[in-house]
Each structure stands twice: as structure tokens, then as C-alpha cells.
């Protein structure tokens, strides 16, 4: 059932009034007297909004508003090629160390091997995630997530919403977590993970990571079967915005990418990363991480191109991982450096203590 194209020009942002009406579901759990029991946190008393986000961009605004209201810093995507929101320093580096942090951001995620030239209605070279990090995870984190669905006009009571076991691992980042995929009427719409390790380091406190698949959710909300039919903005379709890019990037990925060049770049990116970690001032880990991400993308390009031999593969992944772990270690070392660290210079500023 396709929605007819909207002819009335709506002001961008006008449709997200309803999420502002949602009541904060994030109440601190009552500290009961012994014997009284803690009052169970309210399950989604938020009234489902009567108006669902009509467009993809409304969906983004709704999520940003919802999580912004819950104390998340609303950040912007990482401005380099990454495969997932997890790789953004706002996740990978913020989850390290003891400082609390809350952040939310859109992240376009590139998976060269998933390119389909714009022909597949469900699969994309680059899809968009909305990434939320809650460190430490609040006691009612699941309810907060379900509240976000309600804020999107999805009434969980009218659907089959389930948390189904699905643990997550990133070998290149030395990271893994335990959690679920959230299914909405059989469709996976969110990855919900309690981070246990990043950069090979055990996390304390742990972080809750909630990753929404924006195109999937939008297709559900807009009731379309083909991602390219999504309405990105009033009167503008996903096809208009991204189809050509999908075609060209898929073609590049499978046919045009210069394997020798990328192999060379892979090694050079790693080398530059390691060089920066030798900084005597020990304040170059963010710069080094930049290069780690570039090497990871180079690997993905090589992989999609079929240029990685069976015996090399594990070794190459290990190389990226080693650099990622070294960056993580340097970051932790820096954060635990004594007083004299300027406010706002490292991860976890006072303003974000939540």
C-alpha cells in the first residue's frame, strides 16, 4: 500500500511536534526501604503518538528528539568511511574508561560486499543507522527503548515486539557484547547490545548500545516494500537521493576498485596509525584512530573485490585489530592521566555526567 505523494509543502521539522509531548520514561528507580521492593519502572506509559513520522527525515528527527530529551548528546556521523555506528569514536572510544557518556547520532554505514547496484529492494551498499550509547546503561534501558518505538507511533501492544538472543562481535575492533535483536512482527529493526569489551579491554562500566536500522524502520512505517520508494522528505524519494550512488559505489566495489592500490593503502594507513601512537606527548590516539578506520575500509573494499586470499584473511583482520587495541590502550592511559587534564579535552566531560 503506497502512500500518495504529498503535494502540500510541509516545513521540515513541523511533523515532529508529537515526540515532544512524550513524557520522560527515564525515572530513577525508587530506592525502597528494605522489604518494600523497588517500584518496577513504568513500562511505556508514553502515549503512542497519533502521527507516525511520515518521512525518513522525520524519523531521524523523532529519534534525535527522543534521545536528546533523555540526556543524549546529539552528535553527527563520523565523517569518514565506516561499516557501522560502533566504529565512530563516539562509541569505540567513549565506552572505554569510567566516565559516563550518552550520545546519539545517525551513521551511514558502508558494507561494500552488500552492494547490489541499486537493484535489490532490501539491500544497500550504504545503509543508515541511528546509534545510541548509554554509559552506564540505565536500569530501565529496555523500557526507554520501547518508549522510543512508541514515540515513532509504533504501539508495541498492537504488534509482536520481541527481544531475541543475538550477541555481537567485531573482530577488527576487538569488541564484543551480549544482547538481542529486536524483532517487530518478524522484522529485525534494532540491535540491542551490552558492550563487554572494546579494543580488547574489559569495560567498566559497561555501555548499552542501541542501533536502529533506519531504512528498515522507515519501510515499516511507510508501508513500502522497496527501499527506493521511501519518502525521504516530502515529495522526495530515496531513489532520488541515493539510487545513483548505490549503482556507482556497487560498481566501484565489485568492478573498478584497484586492488593493488588498496593493498598498498592498507599497509600505509596502518603504518601512519602506528607512527602517531609513538607520539612522545601521547596525545595522538584520536588522530591514529582515523587511520585505523581507513585501513578497515580498505580491507572491506579488498574483500568485496575478491582480492583477499583465504590464507591471508585472518592475518589482515588481526593487523587492524592490533592497531585498534593500541589506540584503545592509549586512550585509556590518557584519560586516567592525573589532574592537569583540561576540561573538555578528553572523553566524558562534566556536562555529560548522567
Amino acid at each position, binding site marked *: 500500500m503506497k502512500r500518495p505523494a504529498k503535494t502540500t509543502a510541509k516545513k521540515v521539522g513541523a511533523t515532529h511536534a508529537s515526540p515532544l509531548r512524550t513524557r520522560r520514561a527515564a525515572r530513577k528507580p525508587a530506592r525502597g526501604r528494605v*522489604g518494600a*521492593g*523497588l517500584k518496577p519502572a513504568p513500562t*511505556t506509559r508514553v502515549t503512542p503518538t497519533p502521527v507516525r513520522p511520515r518521512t525518513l527525515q522525520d524519523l531521524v528527527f523523532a529519534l534525535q528528539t527522543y534521545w536528546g530529551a533523555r540526556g543524549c548528546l546529539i552528535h553527527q556521523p563520523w565523517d569518514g568511511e565506516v561499516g557501522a555506528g560502533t566504529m565512530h569514536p563516539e562509541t569505540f572510544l567513549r565506552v572505554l574508561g569510567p566516565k559516563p557518556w550518552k550520545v546519539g547520532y545517525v551513521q551511514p554505514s558502508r558494507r561494500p560486499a552488500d552492494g547490489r547496484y541499486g537493484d535489490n*529492494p532490501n539491500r544497500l551498499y550504504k545503509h543508515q543507522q541511528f546509534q545510541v550509547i548509554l554509559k552506564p546503561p540505565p536500569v530501565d534501558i529496555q523500557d526507554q527503548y520501547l518508549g522510543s518505538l512508541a514515540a515513532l507511533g509504533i504501539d508495541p501492544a498492537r*504488534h*509482536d515486539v520481541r527481544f531475541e538472543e543475538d550477541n555481537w562481535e567485531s573482530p577488527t575492533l576487538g569488541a564484543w557484547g551480549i544482547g538481542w535483536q529486536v524483532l517487530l512482527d518478524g522484522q529485525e529493526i534494532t540491535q540491542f547490545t551490552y558492550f563487554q569489551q572494546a579494543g580488547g579491554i574489559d569495560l567498566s562500566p559497561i555501555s548499552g548500545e542501541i542501533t536502529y536500522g533506519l531504512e528498515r524502520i522507515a519501510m515499516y512505517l511507510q508501508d513500502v516494500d522497496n527501499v527506493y520508494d521511501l519518502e525521504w522528505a516530502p515529495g522526495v524519494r530515496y531513489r532520488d537521493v541515493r539510487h545513483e550512488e548505490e549503482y556507482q559505489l556497487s560498481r566501484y566495489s565489485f568492478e573498478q576498485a584497484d586492488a593493488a592500490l588498496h593493498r598498498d593503502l592498507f599497509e600505509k594507513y596502518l603504518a601512519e596509525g602506528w607512527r602517531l601512537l609513538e607520539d612522545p606527548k601521547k596525545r595522538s590516539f584520536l588522530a591514529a584512530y582515523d587511520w585505523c578506520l581507513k585501513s578497515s575500509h580498505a580491507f572491506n573494499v579488498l574483500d568485496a573485490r575478491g582480492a583477499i586470499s583465504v590464507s591471508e584473511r585472518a592475518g589482515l583482520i588481526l593487523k587492524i585489530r592490533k592497531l585498534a587495541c593500541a589506540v584503545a590502550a592509549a586512550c585509556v592511559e590518557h584519560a586516567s592521566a592525573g589532574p592537569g587534564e583540561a576540561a573538555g579535552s578528553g572523553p566524558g566531560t562534566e556536562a555529560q555526567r548522567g
Partner: protein
Amino acid sequence: MAEFLLEIGLEEIPASWLEGLAGQLKAQFETIAGRELLEPADLEIAWAPRRLALGARVVKKQKDREEEISGPPATIAKDKDGNWTVAATGFAKKMGVSVDQLIMPAAHGTAIGPGPHDIGKVTYLKKTAGRPAIDILPGVISTLLRSLAFPKRMNWDAWIDDGKGAFPFGRPIRWLVALLGGEVVPFTIYSAKDGARGEAVVVSGHATRGHRFLPRGQAGQSISVSSFSELEAKLASRYVILDPAEREARIQRTLVPQASRIRDDHGLPAEWRDLVEYPTVVFGTIPAEFRTLPTEVIETVLVHHQKYLPITNGSRSVDRFAAVVNTDDANAAEIVRGMERVVVARLRDAAFFFEEDLKRPLADRSSDLAGVTFHQKLGSYKDKTERMLRLIEEMGPKLGLLTKTEHEAAGEAAAVAKADLTTLMVREFPELQGAMGAIYLRAQGGSRGDVIHAVQWHYHPLSIEVGAAPAGELTGGEATIFGAVSIADKLDTLAGYFGLGLIPTGSSDPFGLRRAAQGVVRVLIDFWAAADGERRPSLRKLVAAAVAGQGSLSKRPPAEVIADLETFLLDRLRYVFVSRGYAADEVDAALGAREPDALDDPKECALRLAALKRVRAEAAEDFGHLAVAFKRAKNILSGAPQPVLDPALFEHDAERELHAVVTRLAGASGGYETRLRALATLRGPVDRFFDDVLVMAEDEHVRANRLGLLTQALALFYRVADVSRLA
């Protein structure tokens, strides 16, 4: 006595863990509470995705108890003047009492009071008052929670104040009901902050939680309970069915009317039971355009990815599916639409893959296998295919296990068996490997039926039951061809990993080598159809060939690898037999037979075992005696068989009698059962031999002669079963 109720409220626990966890909860509580003298009884457990519940009866207060504690010997407890010595006062001090509470033993050593009677020692009767259960239970709860074993535990920054601090668990705990006779048992879980105790995050109480979303508009309200039965009842009214049996029944009620249309339930209804708190089964439709896809593809999409149950129509093609939801059916139509959309998206992909894959002949893909890793250190699937072909070469011309036609077919099958790994379909749905190869071969035409079947089934057998796939699917020569490809693949895998030293341990077998070895065993005992005049496969020779085929990939000396692999395969052979209901001692007896031994001909071993079981059941007593006798004989001979036998040296009738029977039986023919029955008649002569005859006679010639007679008797059995193992 009072009722103890514990409900652990959690975030969704993986379905496959729940039943085991509940069982642990029960067993551990029984042990821990028992240890604390709470006398647990009438334990009951229940579970659902977000909760584990335990009910039990315990005493409200431990019984008062007395314990007799021994001190120094009476002789040194008092000096010659009758005063207490230092030994006695020291003991009294240690007990925390004055010396006049000590008891001297009675003159003749009869002690007073319960407990150990240490004759002659001074004792103290320690009385301990029973403590109230409510004071002990908090400690029981923390021990209980910590004792639960999870396949994977997570750090959720939690802390228990029981001296142990950090408290990882399977999933975060969000509420806790802990009551004794309706009264709250105090228990708190804290957050862990900087390696120390932080604020309270879970405090025990009366309150449980119902379904997340139902009843609509009223979900999320706190529910107060005071007993296990009240918990069950109130949760039910709140759309949580705590009792797994009831959830299962609810599911089955909807499925039973569809029973004739469900070919294979893939164990889904059982899985569904623990996936949801309020199971409702809904039905969806598969659009007609996708029903022509191979059934295996439809089933993989439905079952493996979505956990939906395929339902066939009259003509046995899948046109509908059943699914479980965690809600009522008020919005079933909308939910089903969503589910159908997901299914259709995947089937559309599958249809695309199918069409694309068919554009290229499967055989052409073999060279692409160079790009598919088998193992980082064992090369690509192209390498593996080449090794498999070499093994089939061994089986054919070299070992003579296959006829010319069989050898050709097996080679043709092996050459393409792995090719489907490069297809889009199998890349997307790895579970379809093997099956897709066969489907594509069939669709593209030009392959013989036995080749197609071999490709289709070569990953099997996957389980060891006699009736499991591919039983019933292959006939005659087809079974041998399938067997050749299946064994070639599995033995190459085994030889490869063993050569790298990656041998399974008791707790870890990441490459599925046990299953691979069991598959080899099963092929040889259930499927390989050796026609008359054909030799049966020797595991020993095939293992040697497989190991040799690894060449420089192996990191260990071939002889070591062979030895390890032979041991491993024998162990799996034993396992398969025992799993099929054979007694362990009979299995050992059959495995102990020789000419050929179990490794040279596993099938022969299976035949011997079956015969032994039947005949022994008929003549159990005889075999019991023979077992003892032959164990004795084996010990006497201790591995030094004597070939010499001179009837002239016999001195006793028992010797002559035994000799006569042995000679007669040596010439006997017939199947294993006949021979075993005949051998059972040896019991009498053997018993009399041991009764009347001194085997280790002084005269060395006589002795050697008697040992020779025993050797001959034993030899009769070695060709059937090593009966001494039945002792």
C-alpha cells in the same frame, strides 16, 4: 514449615538456556538450603523468558542441635589429685566454656550423649540453637544466584554484599521476589562503582511484573504476590503463562488441527514455548509466485531464519506458515502482514539467486572454489576437492572398494560436491549446502541420479540414529557412491585438523570432528553396501591414505596423526554402538575381536556385536562363566600364546574333553550366531578344565601343552568376540 518463594525477574534470557537454568535452580537450592539445615522439601520450578521461579517448603527455624566434641584423653585430663589439667582447661577455653561443663567418659568407655564415641576422651556437649530461616535465606539466595552456570555470563556492573563483590550473571536482573511465608526475605543487589559497592538497584519484595504490553492500557502495573500459586495465578491474569507445560499446551492446541499438513515440525513448537511469555499461534500465506521454489529453500527461509513452521497444502508444496507471537490475536492480521513482508523479501532474494545461479553450469564453478576458504592453514575448497578425489582414487583402483561405475560416479560427484559453495544461494543460506548442489544439477540436467544423490547427501550422516537421514533415501550402489564421497570428505577433514594438532577435547569441538567421525562410522556400518566379492572398506587403510594426502599441510609426524585418528575413530565407533543400546561390555568384547579387527572392518564388528547380544541373552549364564574363565585364561597366558599342542601329553580327562570340543568347534562353520551358540557349549569343558587341571604344571612340556590348549580355545573366540571383556 513455611513456603519459600523466589522469582528472579530478568531481561530476556536465551530460550535454549531456560529449562536448564530452572533445573539448576532447583538442584542448587536443595543442596544449599539442605546444607544450611533448612530441610527443603516439595520444590517446584517454573520459567518464562523473563523469569525463573522457585517454590519450596523450608523450616521456619533450624532445629536446635547438639554436637559432642572430643577433647583430650581422660587420662591426661585430670592430674593424680583429681584436678583439671592444663590440657582440659585449654580445651574448655577453646570451646568457650568453663571446665565444669566438660564430661568425663564413663569407666568402661560408654560415652554419654549423641555423637562420635571416642572412648576415653573428655567431651563437651555443644548445643547450638537453631537460627530463624529468614536470617539464613539471604545468604542462601546469594550463594544460589552465584552458583548458576550460564553458557555465557555478562558483566552488568552489579555487586552483592556477601564478601564476594562483583556479580556477573546471564542477563541483568530487574526485580526479585523473595518471600518466606509471605514475609519478605531481605536481599539487595547493588551496582558496582569503581570496584566497590554502589547504590541499590534491585531490592527484594512482594512485587512481580506482568506482560510488558498487555492488558492494553494497563500494562506495567506492579503485582503483589505472597505465594507460588498466587504468583502463577496473578501472572496468568496478566498475560504471563509461567508454567512451560501450559505454554506448550496452548501452542499445541492451535497446531493439532493442522497436523496432517505439517511434514516436519523441526522442533519449533518446543522452541516457541520458551521464546514468549504469552504464546499465540498465527498463520500466514506464501504468495503463489514463490511456491515453486525448491522446498528446501522455502523451509530454510521459514525455519532457520524466522522460526516459522512450514505448512503444506494437499499437493505437499508449502503454501502457508505458522508462527508464534508474544501477544494475543487481537491484531493478528496486521502482525501477519508484517511477517509475510519479511518472508517475501527473503523469498524474493532466493528466487533471484536461484535464477542467477542456474545461468552457470555447476561444474564450471569448481575453479571458483579456489576463493572459498576451508581453513586458513588447510587451504581452499578447491584444494580439499582435489584431496577428496585422490582418496576416491584410493578406494577405487587401489583398494578395490568400488566397481568401475561406482568409482566414476563417486569421482564425478566429488568434483562438484563443493561447487555450490560459490553459488549466491548457498552464500546467503549456508544451511543449503549439498542440497542446492543437487537441486542445480537436477535442474541443469546431464547428471546421473546416483551422482546427484551423492552430492545431495554427502554432508550426511549428521546424526547417529539408525533411521536418521539418509536412511531410506539411497538404494544399493547409490549408497556406496554416497558413502565414498561422504567418507572422503570427512576423513580429509579429520586428517587435516588432526594433522594441525586441533584435536577435540572433552569440552570443546569447534570443528565438529566428533560428528564427522561418527558420520564415517555410520556410513561404514549402515550404508556401505559391499556386493559379494567386493572388499569392505578398511578404516585403517583409509585413514593412512587421508593422512598421507595432507602432505606438507600436516604439522605433525604422520605416524602420530594416524595413531590419534585411529584411537578417535574407535572411540566414536564405541560411542555409536553404546548409543544404539548395546551394553558397554559387549561393545568392548566385539571391538576386541580380531581377523579382521574393528578398524579393518567396522561392519564386521557390527555384525559380531549384534550376534553376541542376541546369543548372550539366550545363554547368559553360560557366557558369564565363560567370561570369567577366559579372563583367567588371558591372565595366565599374559600375552604369550603358545602354539604347541601335543595330545599325548594330556594327563586328565578334562584336558582331553576340552581338546575334543575345541577341535570340533574349530572346524565349525556358519554365521556368528550359530558359532556363538556352539561356543557357549564350551562352558562345561572349560569349567572342568580349570577345576581339575593345574595349568602351571611343574613339567615345562606339560605346562606349555596346557597353555597351548588354552590358546586354541581363546582363538576360537577371538574371531567372534573377546569374551573375557564380559566379566
